[in-house]
């Protein structure tokens, strides 16, 4: 009996000895993933898809917390001021990260965040109504030059990526258009279909249903290369307009996040992106999976932010 317990103690001691160095960082309480927009929005869907796909790799619950307000900047500000302990994360990469801070003062900057990984990128497509005499970017530029300042575009709000995209484009093309802000992408699309504006912008998944029904013309997209979803739609770059902006979604945490926490979160979420759950949901939702690691994601956001910043400053 005595010998047995000594053996047990010894085994335990050895186990502890070997286990200790292996236990890098492991979460011990629920991880909160903050979303700066209401439930049901594009950012929210990405967060919930990622949680559904990645949960099995985490020993603790992943909780999506919607903290909507001020175009996503309230949540971004909140997370930037949390401790970098890995328990407060943010879904970033969209307007709140790259566009809004260039249009108005916010109490955070990209420097306050450390990228974890990028999950998707969303192209931005210029759209006109079917039956309108604007069928290509060329038509648009010609018409805008002929009727200077008469054509109007709908954006998803002042300071958003869609607004910035049009600022960049009109500058590159040397045209003048009216800006009519709407509350989000759906009302903007409704305004286009109702004939209340001439142009709007859309994400591929928003545009697809309208394209299939023959309701809209896709004029061009703002990426460096074409998309598989609409291989016939040219990029603005090809047409000679230097406009490169994309919407992205990924995970970031406060800048003070240490390396081991970053590595853990990055690896687990990456595993989530390789699951069938992620592939099925992203596929069905027409989300373009596009992985980048933390530093690259942050660089990508930095590039976009600088592009927009330069364009806004020149106004």
């Amino acid at each position, binding site marked *: 009996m005595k010998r047995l317990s000594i053996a047990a103690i010894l085994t335990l001691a050895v186990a502890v000895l070997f286990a200790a160095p292996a236990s890098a960082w492991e979460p011990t309480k629920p991880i909160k993933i903050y979303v700066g927009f209401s439930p049901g929005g594009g950012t929210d869907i990405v967060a919930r898809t990622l949680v559904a796909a990645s949960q099995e790799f985490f020993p603790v619950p992943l909780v999506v917390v919607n903290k909507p307000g001020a175009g996503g900047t*309230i949540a971004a500000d909140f997370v930037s001021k949390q401790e970098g302990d890995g328990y407060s994360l943010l879904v970033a990469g969209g307007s709140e990260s790259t566009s809004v801070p260039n249009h108005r003062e916010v109490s955070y900057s990209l420097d306050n965040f450390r990228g974890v990984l990028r999950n998707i990128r969303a192209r931005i497509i210029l759209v006109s109504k079917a039956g309108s005499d604007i069928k290509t970017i060329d038509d648009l530029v010609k018409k805008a030059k002929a009727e200077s300042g008469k054509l109007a575009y709908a954006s998803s709000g002042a300071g958003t990526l869609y607004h910035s995209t049009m600022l960049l484009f009109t500058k590159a093309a040397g045209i003048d258009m*009216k*800006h009519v802000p709407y509350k989000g992408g759906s009302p903007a699309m409704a305004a286009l279909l*109702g004939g209340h504006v001439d142009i709007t912008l859309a994400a591929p998944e928003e545009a697809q249903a309208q394209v299939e*029904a023959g309701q809209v013309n896709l004029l061009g997209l703002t990426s460096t290369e074409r998309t598989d979803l609409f291989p016939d739609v040219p990029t603005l770059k090809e047409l000679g307009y230097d406009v490169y902006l994309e919407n992205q979604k990924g995970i970031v945490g406060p800048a003070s996040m240490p390396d081991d926490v970053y590595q853990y979160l990055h690896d687990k979420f990456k595993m989530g992106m390789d699951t069938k759950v992620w592939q099925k949901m992203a596929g069905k939702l027409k989300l373009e999976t596009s992985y980048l690691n933390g530093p690259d994601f942050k660089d990508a956001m930095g590039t976009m932010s600088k592009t927009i910043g330069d364009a806004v400053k020149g106004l």
Partner: protein
Amino acid sequence: MDLFISAASEVFAPANLLILLASTVIGIVIGAIPGLTVTMAVALAVPLTIWMETTPAMLMLLGLYGSGIYGGSISACLLNAPGTPASAATALDGYELGKQGKALKALKVALWASVYGGLFSIVLLVLIAPQLAQVALKFGPAEITCLLIFALTVVSVLSGDSIMKGLFAAALGMLLATIGADPMLMIPRFTFGVDELFDGLAYIPLLIGLFAIAEMFAQSEQSFRFGATILSIKDGERDENRIYAEDVKKCAIPVIRSGFFGAFIGMLPGLGAAVASFVGYAETKRASKEPEKFGKGAIEGVAASESANNAVTGSAMIPMLALAIPGDPPTAILLSALMIQGVTVGPLIFANNPDVVYMIYVALFMALVATAGVAAMFMKPISHVLRVPKVFLYPIILSMCVAGSYAIRFNVFDVFVMLGAGVLGYVMRIFGVPVAPLLIAFILTRPFEESLRQALIRSEGSLMVFLEHPIALFFLILAVAAVAFTVWREHKTGHRIGEQG
């Protein structure tokens, strides 16, 4: 017809019915709790649907979606704490009925009006969704602006005894609505550097404060003075809680008219069930021969409000299904859920996926039936909540209200907004200033400013745009007529302007 039968047979599979029943019960409960909204419930449920078949997935989501608004009327009638923004107008008369010991009657009327409103909108959805969607698209900034001007005239009806006090409340509501970033350029107004105010005051905490918290302040003041009055549903009051033929007669026209208003407002983007219920309520009062009874326990007020807000559920699906353009947050989530199921919504859905369309029709209808069944069964036991002494009941409601206000944006700021609104509501009561005009002006001001400025950007500042668009002109004429009618009625019933209420 074959499609309809096959959709129905799928819905009626026992497992599917069970899912529908469960989600309906959850929907009612979530709807009844102030601050927890149908939108949250549906958003939380979407990830559960990834591996489900289309039918059970849609049944689950539509069960939550279709039952929540009725749920809101329960807490509105019993506790003066509207469970959803859409049931604020229900509380105006529903809670008065509750205080008179007719809570059960109010709940019954609310239920049948809800069922009618829901049913009417489903019928529209089934019969003329594509055509209605085209009408909805015609409503651009100019049309919406004039529609909202007309909607603002209901302030005069909601004012109660004194037009001056009503206009004061409405002005206060408009003023509160100007807090936050301006809708065009996102320039902050009256935010004093507080980020939480950037989007303006949130509607739900304001509503909870003005109704539930103010009621608690008033009640506690009374209890301290006169001792507690315990509301109860005694056996002798059973007769009072029956619905009689004359009640049906009183409610029939308001319910039908409000169903029409609700369905119409529901298919336009950005207005929603709260506007619908106030407009339905106010138009019923305007048409009533006894407008003085409103706000003092008129059942047709409850009926009108509930018919209107439930008519929104079906008609909000119209632009989502027919155009792939969701008009409000819950339908936006339903759209993603359909995409996950591999269904592309939009004009082609009626040709490509008629099976799914019919399944949605049947599911919406069955959600309504399930809501009616569940509510009819549990209405009586739930109304016994009024027997709980207020010393115990109020702390529970208060903690629910605090939690609900917090849950809207996960922000403590909104809890303070709720408490501040409670104090405001209490002070308004003392001076006899009605709360309803404040709320409706608050809801309408932001979309009004937005569409007004959108219209003026396009017209380059010319106001003629509102006269050139026929639909816009129509609503302007209606608005002028409504104001003229109010003035005429005031004149006829003696000069009440400026008089004490």
